[in-house]
Structure formats: C-alpha cells, structure tokens
C-alpha cells in the first residue's frame, strides 16, 4: 500500500477555488498549484467542470464530482457557482469545509445578496476573501464569519460593524457603492 505518497502525509492541500457565473465565466478564481500552468488550461478546466456540474442541483447541500482525478466540491447560489478543488486522495469533507467557509464569508460580505452583479461590484472583497481562506494551497481559515471579519475590518474606515452605522452613514455607503459600480 505504498500508493499514497508524500501528499497524503502532508497538509491537506487545496488546488484551486473558483467562483464562476451562470454561464461559466470567471468572477474570481485562484489557483494554488501548477496542474494548470497556462490560462488556456485553466479556462479549459473551468469549462469542463462547469459543463459537468451545470445540470446538477447543488443549491441546498454542497455536491461533489470527480474530474481529471481531482475532487471538486461545489455549491450554487442564485447565478453564482462556487467550486473548491483538491487532489483525489484529499479528504472530501475538508474540501467541503473550505467551500462552506468561502460561501459563508461571501454571503456575509455581500449582505446576503449573493449574485453575480453584487459579487462583481464588490470584487475587492471577494479577492481579499480568497486571500484569507487559503495561502499557497494551505488552509488558513475555514470559519466564514472570521474570514468576513478579517476582510471587513480593512474596508470599513472607522472599523465599526454594519449594524452600528447610522442611517446617514449607511446612505453614504450606498452612494459610494453606486458610484463605484458605475466606474468603467
């Protein structure tokens, strides 16, 4: 039984985290390994995983599939598709924990408006979120609220949580969001 080599004794490793839209286009992706060295290879992988999972129902519970001897766990919310990929010897449940952490954090950061437009308008938050979940393939944090907390402290200038904002502040935030969204 020497088949499982170094990788199994090392830390659990995440190969990539993908956030695609309902047509399989990238919203934000992050690759942590050299399995897909070129952008073309990455796009091909995203396309095949999207086509393979498109028809499945991963809305209530996270689903799982095998692709190119990788394990992919995924979850769909509105028009967003969340994917986490690991090697085929990886513990499926660890991958799912990462996926859930990613989704929870995004939902918190987007104030439960988890859809493509909201995600693109807050792309900086999504990218920071990816950065806080996994570092170079190693899981940094899996608790969605902690991840969101880390990301949010950077964006709120005064550092106060959303609930404590006054109405005028909230309006100001909304206006800023609108402005930002119209920047081309």
């Amino acid at each position, binding site marked *: 039984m020497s088949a499982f080599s170094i990788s199994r004794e090392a830390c*659990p490793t995440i190969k990539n985290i993908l956030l695609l839209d309902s047509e399989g286009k990238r919203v934000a992706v992050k690759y942590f390994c050299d399995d897909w060295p070129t952008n073309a290879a990455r796009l091909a992988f995203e396309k095949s995983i999207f086509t393979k999972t498109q028809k499945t129902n991963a809305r209530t519970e996270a689903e799982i599939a095998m692709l190119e001897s990788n394990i992919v766990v995924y979850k769909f919310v509105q028009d967003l598709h969340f994917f986490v990929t690991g090697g085929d010897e990886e513990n499926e449940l660890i991958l799912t924990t990462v996926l859930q952490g990613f989704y929870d954090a995004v939902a918190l950061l987007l104030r439960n408006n988890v859809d493509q437009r909201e995600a693109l308008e807050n792309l900086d938050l999504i990218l920071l979120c990816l950065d806080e979940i996994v570092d170079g393939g190693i899981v940094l944090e899996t608790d969605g609220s902690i991840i969101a907390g880390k990301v949010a402290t950077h*964006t709120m200038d005064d550092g106060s949580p959303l609930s404590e904002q006054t109405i005028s502040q909230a309006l100001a935030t909304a206006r800023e969001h609108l402005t930002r969204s119209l920047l081309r």
Partner: protein
Amino acid sequence: MAQPLVKKDDDRDDEMDYSPFMGIEKGAVLQEARVFNDPQLDPRRCSQVITKLLYLLNQGETFTKIEATEVFFAVTKLFQSKDVGLRRMVYLMIKELSPSADEVIIVTSSLMKDMNSRTDMYRANAIRVLCRITDGTLLTQIERYLKQAIVDKNPVVASAALVSGIHLLQTNPEIVKRWSNEVQEAVQSRAALVQFHALGLLHQIRQNDRLAVSKLVTSLTRGTVRSPLAQCLLIRYTSQVIRESGMNNQTGERPFYDYLEGCLRHKAEMVIFEAARAITELSGVTSRELNPAITVLQLFLSSSKPVLRFAAVRTLNKVAMTHPTAVTNCNIDMESLISDQNRSIATLAITTLLKTGNESSVDRLMKQITNFMSDIADEFKIVVVEAIRSLCLKFPLKYRSLMNFLSNILREEGGFDYKKAIVDSIVILIRDIPDAKESGLLHLCEFIEDCEFTYLSTQILHFLGNEGPKTSDPSKYIRYIYNRVILENATVRAAAVSTLAKFGAMVDSLKPRIFILLKRCLFDNDDEVRDRATLYLNTLGGDGSVVETEGEVKEFLFGSFDVPLSNMETSLKNYIQDPSEESFDINSVPKEVKSQPLAEKKAPGKKPTGLSAPPSAPASAADAYEKLLLSIPEFASFGKLFKSSAPVELTEAETEYAVNVVKHIFDNHVVLQYNCTNTIPEQLLENVIVVVDASDAEEFAEIASKPLRSLPYDSPGQIFVAFEKPGGVPAVGKFSNVLRFIVKEVDPSTGEAEEDGVEDEYQLEDLEVVAADYMLKVGVSNFKNAWESMGSDFERLEEYGLGPRDSLTEAVNAVISLLGMQPCEGTEVVATNSRSHTCLLSGVFIGNVKVLVRLSFGIDAQKEVAMKLVVRSEDESVCVAIHEIVASG
C-alpha cells in the same frame, strides 16, 4: 470624494450582462494607475484602480515586463497612505505581481515596518507578502521577527508566520529548521488553526527523523488536539508511524490503533472520516480492526449530504477490492444508492456491489443496473462495464447473463470510448471463458453490422479472423464479414478481405467459396482492397481447389510482425537514402528491442488491454517474451516457451543500478532474463555480464550467456543467461548473481564518455527457481465438471498441519502462492470469522499436464491450521510432485 456622482442609468437593471467591468481595457487601466503617483492620494480611487488591475489579471490578462515593473513601482508609492483598506489591496497587488529580486528591495523596508506595526492585520499580511516575495538573504534579516510572530498572542499573526514557514521550508529548509522551538510552543496554542499550522510545519521539519515523528505522535495522541483539521493531520501522521513501525508481535496489537478507533467517535465528521479511511488503509488490516470503521462509513451512506455519501462509498469501494466480505453488511444501504441523484455516487455504489456480490445476487443486480445504465454519462458506463467484466471472470458460470447485458448495451447509443470498453470486455471474456466464445463472437458480428467506428470494425474483424475459424461452424460468420466488403469504407473493406483469407486458410471446406468472394473483391475501387485480394488469392493457391493450406502460408497470415517497427523504420530510411541494386531484406533489420517494452507490464493493476493485445490473451506478455527469445539464435533451439515468471526485483528501489529478472521456463532449459537499468547519468557501463553462481542449484548447468555491450543512462538493456536442466522435471535451486561491468565516466554537459573505464562489480540479490515457476495459472470455468471429467484414477489425498497462522486467509494465500495455481470461482476469498474454508485451484504443469486441486482448511482456537489436499491430474507423477511441493514448502 474626488469622483463626481454619476446619475443612475435607468435601463441598467434590464441589462442582463451588466458588469461594472464591462468594456474594461488594459491600456486604459494602466493609464488610470497614474493616480498612484498623485501627491494627494485618494485612497478610494486607488483601491478601485487596483481592483480593476486585479480583475484583469484574474481574467487571464498578462502584463509585459515593463508594464508590470511600472505598476509595481507605482503601487509602492501607496505605502504612504495610512488607509487600511488600500494597504490591504496593495499587499494583494504585490503578491500578484511577484516582483523580481531587485524590485523586492524597494518594498522590503515598508513591509518590515508593517511587520512590526501595532496593527495585527498589518503584521499578519506583511509577513505573508514578505515571505512570498523574499529570497534567502533577506530571510536571515527578518528571521528574528518571524520567530517572534510564531509565538505571537494574536492567532492570525501566528498562523501567517507558520504558513509562511511551511512554504519557505521548500526553498530555505536550513533557516526554517532553526525555528522548531517556537513551532513546538505554537503546537500547544489554544487557537485551533494555529495548532493546525504549527503541527503541519513541525511535522515537515522533522519528517526525515522517524523517531522524532513517532515521539510527536505519541505525545499528541495522548493530549488534546483542538481543531478538527489538526486532528486530521495527526491521524495522517499516526498512520504513517503505524506503517513504519509494523505490528507489535508480542501482543498482536497494532500500536495507536486505539487512538484511530477513538477518533471514530469524534464530533467532527471530517475527523471521523479521516480516521475511518486511515483504518481501512492499514496494511494487513484484520476484519476485527476494520469493523468499527465500516460501521461509521455505513452510517454516512444514508446521510443527507452528498459529499458524505460520496466519501463513504468511495472508501468502501476501495475496501471491497481487498476485503469484499467486510463490505457485504453495507449492501442494503448501497443498493438504495443506485438511484442516487449524484451519478458519481451511484456508479461507485454499483461497482462496489459488483465487487462484493455473490453468485446468487448477480441476476438481481444486473436487472437494477439495466435501468440505471440509460441515464448516466459514458464515463460512468465505462466504469460499470469494467466492473462487470471482472465480475464475469470471477463467476464464469454467470457468463450468459453478463454477456447478454454487454451485448444489450452494445446496441445502445454511446461514444467511442464506451463502445471500445464493451468490445474489449467481450473479447476478454471470449478468451478466458471458452464456453462464451460462440455467443460472444456472434454479438460482435451483430455489432459490426451497424458500427460507426472504423477502428472498432477493423479490430473486431481481425479478432474474428483469428478466432472464428476455430469454432464449430465457421461458415456462419462469413455473411457478416462479406457484408463489410459490400457496405463499408475502404479501411474496413481491406480488413474484411484479410479476415476472409484467414477463414480460407484455416477451414479447407470453405476454401472454394471464399475464393469466389475474394475474386469479387478484385474489382473493388480501392487499391489496398484489390491488392490484398490479389495477394491472398495467390498465397492461398489461386486455383480454388480444396487443398491443405501450407504451414508457411498460415505463418504469413497469422504470424505477427516480429521486427520492432522503429527498427524497421530506420532500416527502410537508410535503404532509401542509399539506393542499391539489391532488394530490401527484412532479415537485415535488427530484432533487438532498444528500449524495453515489457517494463510497463510491471506497473501494478495494469489490466489486459483487450483488442490491442495479441490474440492469445493471458499469454500476451508471454508472447512478447517468446518472440524476444526466439530472435536470439542461441535460444532458438530450446523449443516452445512454457512459462515466463513475473519480474523479480534483484535490487532495492532507487539504487545505482536497477535489475530485475524474468525466469523463462522451457522443457529442458531455463533462461534468466536480467533487465538492467543504469540510473546514474554520469556513468556508461560497457560489457555488462551477470555472473551466476549455480552451486546451490545442482540440477542446472549454465550453457550460454548473452552479455550487454553497453548500458547508457536510463535506457534499459537485457542480459540473458541460459541453463540446461533435466527435461520435464520441476528442478528447483538457488542462484546468486553478481553484475560485472566496465564503468566509464560521462561528462554530463556533453554526454560523451571517457576513453578509459574501470572494471567493477555489483552484488545482486539471490534468485530462486521454485516449483511454482513450473505451473501455469489456467482457470477452468466450471470446476465441478472439470473435476469429475478428470476422474479419480490418479487422485492423491494427503493431510498437512500448517502450524499456527495469523488467519485462514493468510494460510490460503500462502498455499496458493506456493503452488502458483489459479484460484477458481472466487474461492481464494475466505469469509470473515469462518473456521474452515475450501479453495479450488487449477493449473497446467510443465509437460502440459492439467492439474486440479481441492484444498480444505480448518483452523482451531489456537490458530493451528490443518489442510487436506486432494490432487487430480492426467499424470500420476504430477500428482506426486504437487504433494512434494507442499510437503517441502
């Protein structure tokens, strides 16, 4: 806010494809990046520009070297701003740009300042960025801070330093190894993830020190590990320690098994599963150890979460390969998974059931699968087909229903790979189960009547040409074959002509009629088809009379091409380049194979590849060996090759020279084939010989040896040594081997060897020729019939005490491998906890004598195993020989 407020676009909501980045262009964004140089920085605007740059990079856009440098320098200016959000984006941008060494210097001081900042977020992120972009020299400067960070009271900072340590260990191990005191302290941290990261790093620092790893595991398995992730790591390290330490022989207990079993009751599913999987993968796991793990996996099977079901069924599927009986308890849960929404789960459930099922459940299972097949993707169907193939080989009596199933799915829609898998399976069944031949061939014939894949048609026609003439009524295949000549494309027509010719050559009664058909092919509009028809008409003796086909013609039609194609290609190219009057002589092509094609056979788990393998299937490796041996003049007179053993390794893995040996058994000779590989790039070996000392093998006398002239780096070569031995007798003996050669230094830059070499030798491990080498594994489809038809004329019965054994399974396997015979009807599998077992074996002994063996085992409370062995064969002396093998083993 410097940005003017833009009025809301009214129809924006209706626009489906709306994106804030629509129409974004790299050039324009790079222009925008100039705001980074403004004396009065606008943090929000700068953040937005960075987001756009990151968006571009994320979409796969690349920056040229100059662009990247410009952006990088501009971004470094942003360290002036005190805005926390902007700083965070700056960190992200720097990581994405992965600056070069001379650029890194620019940001080093800024990052080092942040590393000592009072803001935890700055500290954590600056550490991660700096460690990502730094090189060894800089690392020594910041080492002090990193050590402090590892034991920092803020878990985010500690984790950042630890994870960076894991990455840095790859490039600067000597520095990171100095941190082990701090890391050790961090392992005791109360923060869950800090403990996880510290454990990961500590293990990697110590991974080459077995004792240290073992100590680490011993102390932690007793203590409290908080986070589930850290617990998973510990389970992995524990099973590594178990693997390296082996069984505790005094008590029969496995060290740390209690810990793994305890983890099955952990509250996190992640940990339960990791532990269950670790238990199933223990080497030589007993059913008592396996049971608790199987029980929790069984619970997962009925979970509402697809991921849990998948993980459990995938693990059980693996267990079923080695311990089918252990998984049978889960069969009911498994059957309900056949209709699972997730097709990966359903397929795994099916294939597991196929592995664990017994003969009586096959029919019921096949019904369920038939319903299931129509709505899964091709890739899953292939898995099912392969599982059915192995099931059929296990229960040959059930071939009828399984073959029917295969032929049914062959008729349905499907892609090339799927059809090929089915056809391959049918072909393998035809070869291994003689009873299935006729029906299988007819199924294939029907398939090519309506087959859209030229490759499959031609392969089936070729196979039909070899097997069809040997059936009871060859004439019924002719119609299908000739239909191809009428209906198909040129490639298939040509293949059909060859097949017709084979029928003509083999079946004399059909010859005149075949001639008529072949003559019709002379008017085909394709050159190749006409040429083949003409050729075959002439070779078969064009007058159409019923005559015995000559051996030479048969050899021409059926013999495979014995010259390596790559050699043939080189020879032909040389011939064309240097034209001469003489015609090309195929005998001038060297037959020695340069690279060793058989090496890949060693790959474990390699399945027979169906059509692509030569016709007499299980002997495909043997065929290749036979060709190879016959091409060597010294061995040509030895006659027919009886058996070639699997390669036996004579060196440890990863030594300077890798040598394995294949034992070729002939009636009066044994040829040892040493496959050697030189794994040192700086060496060239010349005049390589194996000096064999046969003093412990009295009946063997060395008669010939074929050395290897040169053995360059990484291109395997073969050395042969031949021995004479008494005919028909299973002579055994032990050989010691020494590799002797002249070694020459090779300059790795030029690849040229030096003139002078040094003589040297290399001790190889000993090799034994054992009785099992004289036994061919040949299965019978119906053991009872074969047993009865063999008769009890030469039956021999004897009882043996095998002494204390760990389990019945071990005893059964020991006897099977001692005899080297084929277990029949799946009787090599011993039911869990049973106290007795009957095992049926069949084989062919040297001299082509069929042998059947019935073994009855019993085990008592003291684990003493007794065995009754009954042998039947066509030759009394063989029966005696079998008993001698057991008595002396």
